[in-house]
Each structure stands twice: as structure tokens, then as C-alpha cells.
């Protein structure tokens, strides 16, 4: 049952060109208006981090891009194609993969089934050997029930399963939340390695110390808007502002 995907890294799209363009994105949960006009870009091969306090709208931004928020307006262009009206299964098949904050490990599936669940959407996904190389723990626990894994292992599984699919644009929602420092470090290494392999990553983080080890650029989200943005090189100069934004 081992899938033999080709061992190539996903090709960089348009040599560092713009891969995701979000313009005036608004979104609603039922009656509550969460996003009030989000604007930002992600370039191919970058790691971009959305920072912001709880409830600022970071997760909603990811979910809106993924197409799993019922009501959304504005424009989200992925590889120059507007996906604001596209259903989430079609968005996934265009090459966007989502790792949710709650991890979404299925308890009625064992680890192997969880890992193999997301269908391959295009060629170029990581082969299983490479995934087990990144996350050796998973290999030993393939027959365990998905939710019997530790929190860290569940997070690894949640990331691992979207690397198989060939999607080259990954959205990771707070991958370090609630994990031990040594595991956070491992996830940091993984993200750095994925970047080297050519993946583009949109990260949501509260932990900007962690984010600063992997991110190229930052956007700050507050009350459903992007209120600031800067590169990793500008991080030191923006530290005071950042403390105020995040209230830390």
C-alpha cells in the first residue's frame, strides 16, 4: 500500500513570484463579522507568518483561503486564479493543504490510515521514506489509533499527511501550540527543511520567538485586518511595536 510518488520536490512556482494574493477579504461566522478586509501576499518559496492576539482573525483567514468559511467576500488569488467562490475540495486539488489548529486526527482511523487519508492532488509529494525520515516516531506507531498518539506526535502526523499530497502551499495553524520545547524545535527544523524543498508556507503563530526562527516575513492581524507587515530582517527594529500589538 506504500505509494511511490516521485521523489522530486515541488517545483518553485514562477521563480519566487507571487503565489497567493489576498485582497479585501471579509468573512462571517453566522452573524458575526470576523474579517474586515484582509490584504496580503505570499511569494513562492516563502515562509510567511500571521501574528496577532487570540480572536484577531488569523485562523479565520486561513479557513477563508481554504474555502471552509461559509460566507466570504473579496478576492483570494492562488496562482492568479480567483478561488473566493471555489469549494474547499477543489481548492485542495489546486495544491493548497491545511493543517488545522486542533490537528484533526481521526480517532476511528489508525495512524497509517490518517497518514494516507488526504488524496494525492498532484505529483511531487514527499515519498513515505522521506516523511518517516522527518518524523521517525510515526513509523513505529503506524498501527496505533490516531488519537492514542501524544500531542506532539499528533501534530507531526497532521503535518506529515499533507506533505504526501503534492500540495506545495501549506497552511499551518499554530503547529507549536501546547507542545514541549524539544518538539517545537523538531517542528522548526521540519519547516526549515520544507522551505528548502521548495514548499511555500503560510504560518499562524502566537509564539513569535518560534516564528522568528523560520519566517521570512510577518503580518500582524488585529480586529480582522492586517495592520502591519515587515520582513525578518526588520524584526529587531519592530520589536517594541510587536510587543504592543501582541500584548506580551
Amino acid at each position, binding site marked *: 500500500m506504500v505509494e511511490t510518488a516521485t521523489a522530486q520536490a515541488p517545483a518553485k512556482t514562477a521563480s519566487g513570484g507571487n503565489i497567493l494574493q489576498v485582497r479585501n477579504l471579509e468573512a462571517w461566522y453566522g452573524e458575526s463579522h470576523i474579517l474586515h478586509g484582509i490584504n496580503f501576499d505570499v511569494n513562492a518559496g516563502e515562509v510567511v507568518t500571521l501574528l496577532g492576539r487570540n480572536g484577531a482573525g488569523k485562523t479565520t483567514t486561513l479557513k477563508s483561503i481554504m474555502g471552509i468559511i461559509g460566507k466570504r467576500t473579496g478576492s483570494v488569488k492562488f496562482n492568479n486564479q480567483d478561488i473566493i467562490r471555489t469549494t474547499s475540495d477543489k481548492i*485542495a486539488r489546486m495544491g493548497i493543504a491545511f493543517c488545522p489548529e486542533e490537528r*484533526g486526527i*481521526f480517532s476511528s482511523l489508525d495512524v497509517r490510515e490518517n497518514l494516507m487519508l*488526504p488524496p494525492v*492532488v498532484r505529483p511531487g509529494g514527499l515519498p513515505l521514506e522521506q516523511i518517516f525520515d522527518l518524523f521517525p516516531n510515526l513509523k513505529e506507531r503506524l498501527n496505533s489509533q490516531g488519537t492514542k498518539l501524544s500531542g506532539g506526535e499528533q501534530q507531526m502526523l497532521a503535518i506529515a499527511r499533507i506533505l504526501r*499530497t503534492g500540495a506545495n502551499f501549506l497552511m499551518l495553524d499554530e503547529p507549536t501550540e501546547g507542545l514541549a520545547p524539544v518538539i517545537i524545535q523538531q517542528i522548526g527544523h521540519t519547516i526549515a527543511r520544507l522551505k528548502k524543498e521548495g514548499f511555500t508556507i503560510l504560518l499562524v503563530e502566537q509564539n513569535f520567538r518560534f516564528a522568528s526562527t523560520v519566517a521570512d516575513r510577518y503580518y500582524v492581524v488585529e480586529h480582522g485586518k492586517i495592520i502591519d507587515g515587515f520582513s525578518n530582517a526588520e524584526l529587531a527594529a519592530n520589536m517594541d511595536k510587536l510587543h504592543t500589538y501582541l500584548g506580551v
Partner: protein
Amino acid sequence: MQALYAQLLVGLINGSFYALLSLGLAVIFGMLNIINFAHGAVYMMGAFAAYFLLNLGGINYWWALLLAPIIVGIFGMILERTMLQWLTGLDHLYGLLLTFGIALIVQGVFQNYFGSSGLPYAIPDQLKGGMNLGFMFLPVYRGWVVIFSLVVCIATWFLIEKTRLGAYLRAATENPTLVRAFGVNVPRMITLTYGLGVGLAALAGVLSAPINQVRPLMGADLIIVVFAVVVIGGMGSIMGSIITGFALGVIEGMTKYFYPEASNTVVFVLMVLVLLVKPTGLTGRAA
């Protein structure tokens, strides 16, 4: 002793129908979160489909085993697309009312044209007669029903628990939004699942036609017991609904032998006991 074995066989046959029907109900409940009260009506439609295939099309029992579930399954998928899908996210009560209404309409239409009496459906030639097993006489057709139902139940269990398609199904039962965000067309899967559950009921209808005749209310009578079976077994589990189906059929048959007065109520007494001790059913998980 002869009578005991005979009742045991009757119990196994009823158990086959309970298992096929409650299996379909469990699959539908898992994916659609709907308690399908139309299940008895589609069971009846399966038997009628076999009857029409034979009498209008000259298509025999063996083809009916294949075609009737497909025809009725397509009917079910149309119901799901046109009506049931709009109930997603609403209270169980709406699904119950809608499917119950559908059942009444379907049964009413058939009753209007065919009355309440049974139409005959002959046992196919290959399955006529019986075998003397030494301790009892086994009508071949009845043995066939038990074995074939068991095979279909196990195959369905295998499909859901052991295959990739089944993994999609189980995952989508837990978190349809995320499975869809992985690129799986979940709405289409839901439609096919409803078709599968309804098809299993129709298959039970075809199997039952030569034994119980073909009657518009054949499903209405049976479905009450099947719901008790489902409550006892628990809604969540595939294997649980199969085992409970067969076991309760046998218990009912045994009661007919040892204490016939209670044979119509034993399932409901058990249901009350199970509800008192374990409200989620013997194998079920909390809703």
C-alpha cells in the same frame, strides 16, 4: 427438538433482515446524521422492484438481487440530492419528520395500487426444495438467505473498516469539513452512502419476497423492530449492528419456542433494559 431448530432458523432469517436493515441505518446515520424512517419503505420497494422486474420485464431473481438494490439506491440518491441534503446541520427531528413523511407517501402510493394483500413471488428453481440435515429439515431458500445476508454484511463491514474508501467514510463521519478540505468530494460521498444504505434495505426486500410475499406494508411492520434492534446495538458501530441484528433474531426465535406469548415483545423488553443500563446501546458511542 425439531420445533426448536425450526424456530432457530426462523430467528436466523429474521436476524438476517434485521442485520441488513440496521447496518444500512447505521451507515446512513454515521454520514448523514439522519435517522432514516424511510428505511422500511425502501425495503418494500426492493421487493416490489423484484416483482416488477419479473412480471413486467421477465427478469429473474438473480438479476433482481443485483438490479433492485441499484434501482432503489438511485431512488434514494435522488431523495438525498433533492431533499435530505438541505437538512444538514439541523436538528435530528427534521430528518425524522421528512423521512417518516416520505415513508408514508411511498407506502400510500403502493397501497393505492396494490391494496394490502400480498403478491406472490416464487422461489427461484435453483433454490427450491430442502435438505434433510438429520436433526432437521432445512428449506434451501432459507439457508441461502441466511448465508447470503451474512456474506453481504461482512463485505460491507470490510468495505467500511478495511479499505481506503471506508477510511474516507469513517473520517468524513468524524469531520466532514476537514476531509473535504483534503480534496475529497464529501457531498458526493454522502449521496453514495445514502444510496448504499438504501440499497442494502432493498436487497433485504428482494431476499424476503419469496418468503413473506410482496406487500406495501411489509416494511412498516418490520421497521419498528429494526429500530429497537438499532437502539439495542447502538447507532455508531457497523459490526455491532450486524451482530445485534442476528442475535436478536435468534433470541426472538428462541422466545417463540420457550415462551411464545412474549415473542413479539421480547425485543422491546430488551430495548428497555439496555436503555436503562447503557443508553448509547451495547456497542454505540455517544452521539
